[in-house]
């Protein structure tokens, strides 16, 4: 049974169909890439899966359970965590408190190891993304790259079974991109299932085994990175039609 099953999901904003009949599934332990030009509906798809938007039709099943239309916090507590495309830190809180908020969720509290304090766990998460030196720094003082990592730490602290990363590489310099690639590879080895939306195809193709291409809300291709890069339709969408 796949971990996440999305079936004939549709979302309309007035006359615009942002997501049109999209179906796909993610197997446990898999890393799925989601690509497409600007406005293809990638973020909308994330919002539909995580409950930030209500779909017009279609179902989302997680571990066989229908989670369509559940409130966002309930979906997180079922085991799906997401990061945001534009970083959304809690500006007034220090880095460690940012992660502590996620540790306060019912799922994280329940999964907390015996005799381990939430603070310790928050620090472990910061260490995992390489931010432990900044733990007491208010989030408003952190650089963009650090905030991206803070988002990851926060998402990981909710103990997700499925991690949805919305453009994790946006705004990162090559060194940071490299570091993040390694982090994601390590998470993959640890058995995390992930869906990654990304523009930087080069970075993405190294990470994923399967790619889905969206265009104007429709799924136009699905396959391994190699297949996708040779797919005529995809090339057409990205490069334009040949003369």
């Amino acid at each position, binding site marked *: 049974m796949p971990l996440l099953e999305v079936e004939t999901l549709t979302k309309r904003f007035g006359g615009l169909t942002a997501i049109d009949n999209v179906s796909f599934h993610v197997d446990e332990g898999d890393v799925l890439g989601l690509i497409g030009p600007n406005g293809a509906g990638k973020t909308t798809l994330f919002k539909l899966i995580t409950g*930030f938007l209500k779909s017009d039709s279609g179902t989302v099943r997680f571990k066989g359970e229908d989670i369509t239309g559940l409130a966002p*916090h309930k979906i997180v507590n079922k085991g799906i965590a997401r990061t*945001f495309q534009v970083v*959304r830190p*809690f500006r007034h*809180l220090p880095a460690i408190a940012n992660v502590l908020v996620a540790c*306060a*969720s019912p799922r994280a509290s329940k999964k907390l190891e015996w005799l381990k304090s*939430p603070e310790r766990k928050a620090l472990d998460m910061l260490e995992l993304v390489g931010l432990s030196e900044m733990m007491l720094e208010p989030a408003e003082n952190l650089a963009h790259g650090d905030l991206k990592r803070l988002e990851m730490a926060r998402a990981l602290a*909710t103990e997700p079974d499925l991690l949805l990363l919305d453009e994790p590489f946006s705004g990162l310099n090559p060194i940071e991109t490299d570091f993040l690639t390694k982090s994601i590879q390590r998470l993959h080895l640890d058995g995390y299932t992930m869906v990654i939306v990304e523009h930087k195809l080069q970075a993405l193709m190294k990470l994923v085994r399967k790619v889905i291409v969206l265009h104007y809300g429709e799924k136009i291709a699905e396959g391994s990175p190699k297949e996708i890069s040779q797919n005529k339709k995809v090339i057409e969408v990205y490069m334009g039609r040949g003369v």
Partner: protein
Amino acid sequence: MVGYFFRRIYLSFATKVFDVPSKLLAFLLFLLLLAIPATRPSSYILLILIISYIYAIFAASWDLLVGRAGLVSLGHALFFGIAAYTSAILSKFYGLPIWATIPLAMLFCALVAVLLGFPSLRVKGPYLTLVTMAFPLILHTSLFAFDPPIGGEYGIAGPPRFFPREFLMGTEFLAEYYLVLLVLFVSAIILYKIANSKTGIVFVSILDDESASKACGINVTKYKLLAFVISATFAGLAGGVYAHSFGALGSVSPGGVLGLTTSFYPVIMTIFGGIGTIYGPIVGAFTLWTLMEFFQFANELRVLIYVSIIVVFILKWPEGIAKFVVKKLDELTEKRELEEREKKK
């Protein structure tokens, strides 16, 4: 044995209070408040201080709701008024002792907060502010529909006082002064602990970014309601104490406990002292209330001078005076520690 006990207390104080300049300052201020009656102030001054402490509790409860959870309420007088009325009615007409009526009034406030919170917390930002503003005004007007001795403009005349006259032995207000100071001290510590607990951190996360808070698996509605209820309970405590101290001297009236001014006092005090700190509103309430009395000599110009001072202070220290002082102290200690570390090297 006793010596050991005191030594333990002293040692825990030495590390937790005396070593932290801002906490040491708070401790010294508390000692100062304890010592004020030793200067044999008039009953009038004691009464002014009592009211300032009551408003300090009230403002601190508002700060937890607004400064921490970011739910801007301009109708906090609702809970102040409900508690004052509940406690006054229960003690005057049903003969219940005050130590029972105030907790009952607080409980009732919490219940009202749950009932009103469910529908009103669905709206956000300025809309929430407007909704909260309406509640005390509605109650204020509805009270006029009832007949005395409960309804009407004059309200409930003379609810019982905390201490019977025989007990006071001429030292009017002194016992009440210490009682209210104790209540302020305890509730300030509880509110401060809540504000800096894990729950308090979640409150701030809601203030900063509600969606991100949801993405962390936080049931935002539940925490908002929790902030509303805690805040209402402590506002109720302030209202209950008010009814039996200041209210007992005259009456618990709609204008006195439910008016717009009552809702705005905590706002001014909190912003003046430092929003989101819990200690800020306490400093603000104390400073502003005593300042107002200090300008008594200026007669009609009093309010003008008072307001100008507030405006100047807020322009100069927008983060609040208490927050400013604490920040400066922290910076100084940090500098000192750095210098010491340099020396060691």
